[in-house]
């Protein structure tokens, strides 16, 4: 599989305010994301997640290091404005606050905003908008007013706007943080569908551990660097390290950790309530009956 994003030794500091020193936000960050992958990024507030997201979609330029998008080095000396714009068209971003990112008053006009600005002919815009709304399940709201939508619906419109421009990769910067459980599920279902059915690469920044369990790979950030990386099962099995980093694990993992500490042999990397219950039942019965069944 080809690599869509390759970051090598990226550092970034926010410029100094009057009389203050520059604030280091990222230090020597290297990682790559394969096309079609679903990567979750976890970490404290202020650990550099959002800064990294802004660098990946080229809102900010790295202070040091190299960033390649779809094989093109965006930090090369001879990079042109046109190359950067090409890169920006490949990587889009959906933000946290559903009220801050819709620009039009009607749903389909909002989704058309990007394709219009790319200068697509009207019939192509129509096709892109219809496809994007269909993909996020908002077709029947095409003519609705954006301000009357729920938070989850607004986020889905924002996603439609991002994919209408043929983007290969979308970065979600805590896009579920302000939503209720229902809205969160709507958005997560949309994200997983985009990833699985449309092959769009997803980078999802979140504080919800259960959302991270849906990813192919999890990166954990602390103090501007990546401290852990692996499949969700691998990362959440390192329960105590995550706690030490001020992060949580899914409640299933936390319960299994208690069960293991009490001397039972259980796995920690189970995120489904039913499977977790089955694992505990197996372990408890196992000690009573010499681990003969199930």
């Amino acid at each position, binding site marked *: 599989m080809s690599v869509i994003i390759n970051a090598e030794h990226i550092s970034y500091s926010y410029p100094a*305010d009057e009389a*203050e020193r520059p604030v280091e936000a990222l230090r020597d960050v290297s990682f790559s994301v394969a096309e079609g992958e679903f990567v979750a990024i976890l*970490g*404290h*507030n*202020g650990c550099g997640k*959002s800064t990294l997201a802004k660098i990946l979609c080229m809102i900010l330029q790295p202070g040091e290091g190299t960033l390649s998008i779809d094989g093109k080095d965006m930090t090369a000396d001879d990079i042109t404005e046109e190359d950067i714009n090409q890169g920006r068209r490949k990587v889009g971003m959906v933000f*946290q*606050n559903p*009220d801050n990112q819709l620009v039009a008053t009607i749903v389909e006009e909002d989704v058309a905003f990007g394709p219009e600005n790319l200068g697509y002919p009207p019939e192509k815009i129509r096709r892109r908008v219809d496809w994007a709304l269909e993909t996020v399940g908002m077709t029947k709201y095409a003519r609705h007013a954006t301000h009357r939508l*729920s*938070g989850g619906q607004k986020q889905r419109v924002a996603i439609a706007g991002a994919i209408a421009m043929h983007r290969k990769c979308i970065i979600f910067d*805590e896009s579920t*943080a*302000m*939503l*209720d*459980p*229902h*809205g969160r599920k709507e958005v997560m279902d949309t994200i997983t569908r985009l990833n699985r059915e449309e092959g769009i690469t997803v980078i999802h920044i979140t*504080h919800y551990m*259960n959302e991270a369990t849906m990813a192919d790979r999890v990166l954990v950030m602390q103090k501007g660097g990546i401290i852990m990386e692996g499949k969700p099962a691998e990362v959440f099995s390192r329960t105590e390290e995550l706690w030490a980093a*001020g*992060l*949580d694990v*899914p*409640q*299933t993992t*936390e*319960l299994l950790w*208690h*069960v293991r500490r*009490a*001397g*039972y042999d259980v796995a920690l990397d189970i995120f489904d*309530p*039913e499977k*977790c*219950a*089955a694992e*505990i*039942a197996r372990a*408890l019965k196992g*000690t009573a009956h010499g681990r003969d069944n199930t």
Partner: protein
Amino acid sequence: MAEITLENVTYIYGKGAPYEMRALDDVSLTFRSGEVTGLIGHTGSGKSTLVQMLNGLLRPDSGKVLLDGKDIWEDPKKIQQIRFQVGLVMQYPEYQLFDETVEADISFGPKNMGLAPEKIKEAVARAAQFAGLAPELLKKSPFDLSGGQKRRAALAGIMAMEPAVLVLDEPAAGLDPGGRREILGRIREYQRESGANVIIVSHSMEDMALYCDRVLVMENGRLVMSGTPAQVFSQADALIAVGLDVPQITRVARALQDVGVDIGLDIYTVKFAAQRLLSGREAHEG
């Protein structure tokens, strides 16, 4: 003492318009001082409308809002006095921050309460510390802060008035797990020390279970359930029926019962589940 009672409160948005919507429908309930009450309900259930009733941002179409037995709308000109006693921290801190510096923003409440300058300074320092805002942030513009810091600044602006009733709409949204625990823990502490009446609106059942004495559930503009977290969360099916989620650990408890390991259904924290599950069941080494 600061007890808030709603008596048969009804509120209708866009009365007479085609979009007319009954956001609150004959709601009667009491928020008792000395308690942390959690208010849950899916988006559109009426909980945000209810919250705006408590400090007089909205006025009931019918019914009464009583603060310590007194109708807060008895003299509409004095509604500002109510807002010094009932502090509301909104869901989006951007809606509430406005001044040039964080310090000026936090000072706004105490200044309007007519406190002397040195008292204002004290109140600001105390509130900033409470909300975990580093002193160097006080000179910054609130709009240069990170999302988490803005949330803390908005909280400090309300805490500076030391409200007898503290209403928080999603106080921990967008904070990392450590930040959530810190902020909610401090709010709990404030309630214990001051005996304040604290009301938290949240989608996080886990947080509700950990920090609230009592949980109220709203649906379609009505109060449909109330009780201790254990009482409310043990009715998982009823909660799911009104579009709410139960904590993941509560689902595990249900699943355990299905496979013959009964630890009860009134489980809403992992620690409690672990205790029930493991007491008397320590495995023997080897």
